[in-house]
């Protein structure tokens, strides 16, 4: 909690995007998280990504559940829609919202408690349905809001602040997502915005559920020597598999196209993501290769980061359900509800 509001003064050279908005216009209220919380850096990365993508704030919906992470949605894009749901139910509420209005950009923010414990079922099925949304897990390995108990993502051997070691196997959201058909899986670190911002942009452009597991250290309960999710540990053990560069639809290609491990993935909206693998045998468009890489890193005690897997041609929930391109909320009532006569005719077929 800070004592004052962020002064409205802006840097004199602060630029505007094509909507006439500056970076500051994508901010929200002042954070009440602990000073130094990784989540605040994720917020800053989201602000940066949304400004660069020129998202219209009033066409976005910020979705969250319960936990430190779920407070994040208050801290960016104060002019956007938002829904703070009950614990773990963010994916389900977003599924419903998206079903009704497919024209909004959905930004779901969750945490390792909200998504990997109470809400793991909700998350898994939103992934399977491929709901068109950005799904950010701010992963710090502890329940910060209830004073630092281990969460489901805590590594075996990682200790609590008071020194006890965790003995239960962790759930890796990236591996889980890969195994149940996720079409966009990435991992990043709150302390590395150079990596995180392009991934967020690619995730927002992706049609389908873009799952981004962000290691976001809990500065109060899990930034100590025995932690495997501290700033220092993450910096020392992070291995970037694939670096993503996001290119909007009409951007001129200025980056060198040379390099052995470069792949360009065309996104649904015409934009593209250029993926630069750091290892020759790594193919970020191949699910099995991605899965194997994450497992191998895990075995070596490394944290695999980067845009691990992407399927540019994925079909989202609406494609699978064959809903019309017009958002359901914009359809006239007569088309949404065929009426009693149509129901009677349907019922007659089962008689």
């Amino acid at each position, binding site marked *: *909690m*800070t*004592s*004052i*509001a*962020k*002064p*409205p*003064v*802006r*840097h*004199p*050279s*602060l630029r505007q995007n094509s909507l006439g908005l500056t970076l*500051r216009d994508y901010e929200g209220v002042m*954070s009440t998280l*602990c*000073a*130094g*919380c*990784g989540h*605040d*850096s994720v*917020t*800053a990365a989201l602000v940066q990504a949304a400004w660069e993508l020129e998202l219209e704030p009033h066409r976005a919906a910020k979705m969250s559940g319960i936990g430190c992470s779920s407070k994040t949605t208050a801290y960016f894009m104060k002019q956007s829609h938002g829904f703070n749901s009950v614990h773990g139910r963010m994916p389900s509420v977003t599924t419903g919202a998206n079903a009704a209005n497919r024209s909004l950009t959905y930004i779901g923010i969750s945490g390792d408690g909200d998504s990997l414990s109470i809400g793991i079922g909700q998350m898994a099925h939103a992934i399977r349905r491929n709901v068109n949304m950005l799904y950010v897990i701010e992963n710090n390995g502890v329940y910060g809001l209830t004073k630092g108990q281990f969460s489901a993502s805590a590594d075996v051997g990682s200790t609590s602040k008071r020194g006890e070691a965790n003995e239960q196997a962790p759930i890796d959201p990236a591996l889980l997502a890969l195994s149940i058909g996720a079409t966009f899986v990435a991992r990043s670190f*709150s*302390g590395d*915005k150079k990596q995180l911002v392009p991934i967020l942009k690619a995730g927002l452009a992706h049609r389908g559920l873009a799952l981004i597991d962000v290691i976001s*250290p809990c*500065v*109060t309960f899990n*930034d100590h020597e025995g932690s495997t999710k501290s*700033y*220092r540990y993450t*910096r020392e053990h992070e291995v970037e598999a694939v670096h993503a560069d996001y290119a909007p639809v009409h951007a001129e290609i200025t980056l060198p196209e040379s390099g052995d491990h470069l792949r360009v993935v065309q996104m649904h909206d015409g934009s593209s993501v250029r993926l630069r693998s750091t290892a020759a045998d790594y193919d970020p468009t191949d699910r099995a290769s991605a899965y194997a890489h994450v497992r191998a890193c895990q075995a070596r005690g490394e944290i695999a980061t980067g845009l691990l897997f992407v399927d540019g041609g994925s079909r989202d929930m609406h494609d699978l359900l064959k809903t019309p391109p017009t958002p359901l909320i914009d359809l006239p009532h007569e088309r949404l509800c065929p009426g009693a006569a149509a129901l009677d005719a349907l019922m007659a077929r089962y008689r």
Partner: protein
Amino acid sequence: MEPTDVSDPRYYHKVVDCQWACPAHTNVPAYIRLIAQERYTESYLLNRESNVFPGVLGRTCDRPCEPACRRGRVDEKPVAICRLKRVAADLRDEIRPFLPKPPDVKNGRRIALVGAGPASLTVANDLLPLGYEVVIYERNREPGGLMRINIPSFRLPAAVLDEECGYIIDMGAEMRYGTPVTSLKALLDEGYDAVFIGSGAPKGKDLDIPGRAAAPAQVHLGIEWLANVHFKHVERIEPRVIIIGVGNTAMDCCRTAKRLGATDVKVIARRGRRHFKASPWELEDAEEELVEIIENHAPKRMLVENGTLVGMEFEVLDWTEDPSGRASSRVVRTVTIPCDAVILAIGQDNAFPWIERDIGVDFDAQGMPVVDRITHQSTHPRVFFGGDAAWGPQNIIWAVAHGHQAAISIDLLCNGRPVAERPPEGMTLVSVKNGLHSWAYDNDYDPSARQVMRHEELARRFRDLNVEVELGFSAEQVASEVSRCLNCDIQTHFAPPKCIECDACIDVCPTNCLTITTNHSPETDLRQRLSAPALNLTQEIYLSEPLPQTKRVMVKDEDVCLHCGLCAERCPTAAWDMRLFDLIQPVAGAACDREELVRA
């Protein structure tokens, strides 16, 4: 780029733009905070330490601090620093009990000061408490120099000046009024240990154009005319008056003319408005009094009929600038402006007819004394110069700054030390942290606009020459204006070993001052890699020692830092702290107590 050495007082001093810009380095943010706390006497005394004449300067200063003020870079206008200084002066209690007392036993050194203007009075102010005997020679009957005879009383009431000169003189200066010095040699022969010359630049520049000599009674030299008004030798002026020149003296002349019966006053400038020497606020005040300011007119001749001045002829100029910025003009046409009197306010010259040229005081080709910029010593070891007498006309605050430095030199000289061994600047740097998110200063940003000074109504102004135009700020205005100060002396202090590179400070900074980056290139390149490259390159960038985890560096661009302290509030490890910077300026006397002297 090398890591920044913040243990050098100059780094943090430069961040306090107003204090850095002030020739006397007045501690502006600290005195504004004291005003905010209604501690006017303390505020006045703090002011007086460096600028000696807060009441005078609070009305007349040329305000080098205000164009420098950081607020002007983040908001439209700077803090009204000068007029807040006047608030402290107006509302103070009796300060005499807090002034230093001269010792009963003198140190046996006698110093002569020539002229009782701001420079000499500052020397006296600094030397009297040390036990020096100070003799001030003044050709007029009252002290103050140009502050008294050239600044009109509607801008500076005599009572304010009397009081502030009195504080110094009453410390025991021996005043020799009505005593112009006619020979420096004779003065030196009286056995003074040092002589300080603060005799100003008392000679108005003349204009050599046809007709100038034909009607002498109607053509005046600006500063002489102002002096004559002061001494009541002049009490009226003709209805139509032309002022040639557009500096601050011209502004005083035109406004004084309006009070002595002139109805049509025109100020004529050779060049366009942005080249005017007068301060913008003095131009505004003149225009408020319905003085017409005419640009791009060069005087050609004075028109005299039957021994009477009837007008002036001007060439209207069209100015162009070549790509290198050099201006050239072309005469468009010639115009005649009728008038009954002309006042020439085109500059001042120094005059030293009373200094013999064979006594060791060297003069340059322009007739100016050769004076050391730091020590103020002339080529004669016992003769020092300051104020306008040293390097030509400047402002009062410069004269005060000169006086302080000359007093240090004189004190060094009298103690047998080389005057070039200047005492060093020092600083204190103390955390202002009270507790969690609690600071010993108000760190909230106040978006209020600059307060506008209230003025006396025009009719009353013109009725009496002595009616002060500016009424001062009301209590409400003071409360608003003090809160506009950004407290630039409360510095962001960084301790690299504590940093965990969480980015919290970078994310929260409202003006994108901070960046964590690699340090592999020179400053010009580094500046381009900052979160928001500054438009203003005159401000320093701070570069830390390598950070513990990644060996990158913390970089802070000082340009538009609001000193809001949010970086320190959001820092989980207190690597950032807010610390009160206090510049310790050397003063006369302190030098000879200290061992650590540095060569200038």
